[in-house]
């Protein structure tokens, strides 16, 4: 099958995956960890149990996916915001490096943080 010479399908896949996963899961985290638990709306586990949970391999994988893909979602969207919103498409190569560079750096930092929990 003939495919594109450029990498847009690759970035778009990360964008699409990031959009889906962040739309589904980030609101849950905001409500639970940002509002409900700090306000003590219900009894919950203590900090050590959370730590234990976060160290589970599946939890690490989940955190990695949510954080990294959300960053790539942002990167792609911000790239096109700069292209179309600020009409900076002539700076395409710098914008691409800047946006996806931040997401890639963020992904590395995420890996380090997840394994140092």
């Amino acid at each position, binding site marked *: *099958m*003939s*495919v*594109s*010479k*450029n990498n*847009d*399908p*690759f*970035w*778009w*896949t990360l964008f*699409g995956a990031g959009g889906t996963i962040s739309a589904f899961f980030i609101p849950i985290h905001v409500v639970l960890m940002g509002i409900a638990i700090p306000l003590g709306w219900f009894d919950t586990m203590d900090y050590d149990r959370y730590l234990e949970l976060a160290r589970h391999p599946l939890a690490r994988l989940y955190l990695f996916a949510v954080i990294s893909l959300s960053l790539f979602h942002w990167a792609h969207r911000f790239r*096109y915001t700069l*292209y*179309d919103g600020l*009409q900076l*498409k002539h700076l395409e190569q710098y914008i691409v490096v800047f946006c996806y560079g931040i997401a890639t750096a963020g992904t590395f930092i995420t890996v380090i943080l997840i394994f140092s929990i």
Partner: protein
Amino acid sequence: MESVTLQVLRYLPEEKSEPFYQDYDVPFQKKWVILDALNYIKDHVDGTLTYRWSCRMGVCGSCGMMVNDQPVLTCETFLETYLPGPIRIAPLSYFAVIRDLVVNTDDFLGKVKRAKPWLITDELKPVTEGEYRQTPDELKEYKQYSMCINCMLCYSACPIVGLDPEFVGPAAVALAQRYNYDSRDDGHGQRNKILMDDDGIYSCTLVGECSVVCPKAVDPAGAIQRYKVTGAVEWWKSVVMPWKSDK
């Protein structure tokens, strides 16, 4: 008789280098569409006014114009909607204007042609083997996209077309999908080459205005989104299984 004012954007390159608005008062009739009012001007007020139209029933796709900044088919847009007026009429946005309300369609038609909106078959069946049969479900797969009448309203509604004139645009992708989803067609590899490259489907940021203004409910935005998914799957396949990417 009640009348309504039409402010028509005119461009007469042999007289003036800049386009200008000209006001025309036309009698208001409840049954009139914008095109009827333009025809009234042409027949009774100013024979020099130039615009395209043909079928006056929303089929030919010739009479698309900007009415109060919205791209519409003037043959199915009633004067009454815009009362008391004035009603501002301009040529379709983002197209080069030839004269008055007539735009140059060459660029658009070139994009449509690049999308290869015709049946491409690897092997032609001999006539003796009979027809290419299709089930109602197979027809349903592409029928919606086959309703496109090339009226170009979607191009005038698309801000990406406005910013990037090279962008292939909504109708061309919808027409490509009309054949990609046809069970008789083998051409989607050829269409991919054009539609997945720079200024192809991934330039679309899903604003969705193309589907809002489409007079035939083709949903070009949906066609583009579906193409992005197909394109992404094929891109990943070509990375994971490069030996299958020879076609």
